């Protein structure tokens, strides 16, 4: 006789109390497939844990964002934010969808060039650009977004020396009603610092002021803040036109749109509180259109959206290493992935679903990662079906920042798999091994031997 499927014995106290006005979540569905590929097959083939990216979701999300803006405004250009996920295959899906590249370091700049992005379609942001970096960007005709006066003076000196025009913009920081205000990047609007930078650029022989840039924050839950930013950038653009008779080529509203992840401490799920991409598009485009530009002077609208375009496409598959009970009676589940590769668990309550069928019985638990470090907590409290050792789970919406901010700490970084439009998996980044570390280390001869 075939044995029955085993489930851990569990008991749960029933508490009668005030009803939650949103009701108790009772429906759970296992996530057994991603884009038609079985989770168990992916783990069997590529190991556990493993990151999986859905090309289908990237394209769908990107096309939806383009639709939201291009149906409202005549000139729109997205630039893929490399720091959000700079795996080449991911970048190239965005480039195939028409995105330029937005980079914040020379290393990302080189990746964009290697990926085949023309120099004049790269936006070079960030506070760290050496003179050599700037020279490369000038020679390639890239858009250099100046962050501070020292960089501005470096550029004036450089372009005067090599007698070449540089296409530049300034990053402008401003009060948009969002606190804390991001004033560490760029030139401040309210104090007149931004206008001061503009006058210096206009007076310089070799700097061509092409655009104005702002990036007001991250995971922004207010569309109004973008409306204020668009309005303040437009004010500068209109004044430049008035004073210098020069139409600004583009306004770059940066990134910061949220994904549907739930922030830690949030009462409602992320999907219920974030504005849609259409809401952001409406706030930004209606402000620019109504600002009073002449039709022929309407600037190109550039967006450096990262998180909102890639988070949904990323999954992390992992397995249960062990179950245990803590001294206060809480259940603890130890997974084979932790904060080392799921950096965003520091600020999100990630949605986690089992990858196999289960009963309706659930339990509250703390979910830990595998690191021998107290900080390695994936979820402080999560209600999940009864998980056994070896069971597999899927963490959702992990496409942004995890594959760039991950750490090689205690454990090695895993493979990243892309499932293409036909449902075929491809390895787009190999896992690290001990040899990866060894290849970078050097041991002086006198430290090669010892006696114990």
């Amino acid at each position, binding site marked *: 006789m075939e044995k029955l*499927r085993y*489930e*851990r*014995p*569990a*008991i*749960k106290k*029933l508490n009668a109390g005030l009803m939650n006005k949103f009701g108790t979540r009772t429906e759970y569905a296992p996530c057994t497939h991603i884009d038609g590929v079985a989770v168990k097959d992916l783990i069997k083939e590529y190991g556990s844990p493993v990151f999986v990216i859905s090309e289908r979701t990237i394209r769908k999300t990107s096309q939806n964002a383009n639709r939201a803006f291009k149906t409202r405004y005549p000139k729109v250009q997205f630039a893929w934010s490399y720091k959000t996920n700079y795996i080449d295959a991911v970048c190239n899906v965005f480039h195939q969808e028409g995105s330029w590249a937005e980079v914040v370091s020379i290393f990302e700049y080189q990746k964009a060039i290697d990926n085949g992005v023309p120099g004049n379609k790269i936006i070079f942001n960030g506070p760290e650009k050496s003179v050599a970096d700037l020279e490369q960007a000038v020679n390639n005709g890239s858009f250099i977004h100046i962050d501070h006066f020292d960089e501005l003076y470096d550029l004036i000196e450089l372009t005067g020396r090599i007698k070449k025009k540089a296409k530049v913009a300034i990053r402008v920081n401003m009060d948009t009603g969002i606190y804390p205000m991001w004033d560490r990047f760029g030139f401040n609007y309210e104090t007149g610092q931004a206008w001061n930078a503009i006058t210096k650029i206009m007076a310089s022989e070799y700097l061509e002021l092409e655009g104005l840039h702002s990036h007001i924050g991250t995971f922004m839950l207010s569309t109004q803040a973008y409306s204020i930013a668009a309005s303040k950038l437009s004010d500068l653009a209109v004044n430049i036109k008035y004073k210098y008779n020069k139409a600004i080529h583009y306004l770059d509203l940066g990134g910061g749109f949220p994904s549907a992840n739930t922030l830690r401490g949030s009462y409602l799920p992320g999907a219920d509180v974030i504005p849609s991409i259409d809401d952001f598009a409406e706030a930004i485009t209606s402000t620019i259109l109504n600002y009073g530009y002449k039709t022929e002077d309407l600037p190109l609208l550039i967006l450096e959206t990262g998180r909102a375009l890639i988070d949904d496409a990323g999954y992390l598959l992992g397995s249960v290493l062990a179950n245990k*009970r803590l001294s206060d009676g809480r259940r603890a589940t130890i997974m084979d992935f932790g904060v080392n590769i799921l950096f965003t668990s520091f600020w999100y309550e990630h949605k986690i679903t089992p990858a196999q069928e289960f009963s309706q019985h659930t339990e509250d638990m703390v979910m830990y990662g595998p690191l021998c470090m107290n900080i390695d907590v994936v979820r402080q409290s999560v209600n999940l079906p*009864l998980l056994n050792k070896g069971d597999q789970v899927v963490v959702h919406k992990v496409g942004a920042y995890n594959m760039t901010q991950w750490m090689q700490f205690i454990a090695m970084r895993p493979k990243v798999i892309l499932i293409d439009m036909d449902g075929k998996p491809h390895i787009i980044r190999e896992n690290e091994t001990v040899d990866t570390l060894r290849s970078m280390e050097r041991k002086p001869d006198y430290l090669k031997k010892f006696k114990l």
Partner: protein
Amino acid sequence: MKINKNIAISESGFIFNPGTGDSFSTNPIGAEIIQLLKDDKKPSEIIKVISSKYQIDGPSFEKDLEDFYSQLRDGSLTAYE
């Protein structure tokens, strides 16, 4: 481990402790173990019954059984031995 003889358990896994007024729910395998405890089965007998009926080996199940006992104790569902 002895289960409190007063507790009532339904077929669907609903448990009521008349001594404290607390109610609990358990999954089918939990209900089965409680029934075996009510029948005064020893841990070794319970392990044998469950591991021969379900897809689990004895040593693995023993670990889960110990944890289940601790949950029963936390819920005051056990009797003094």
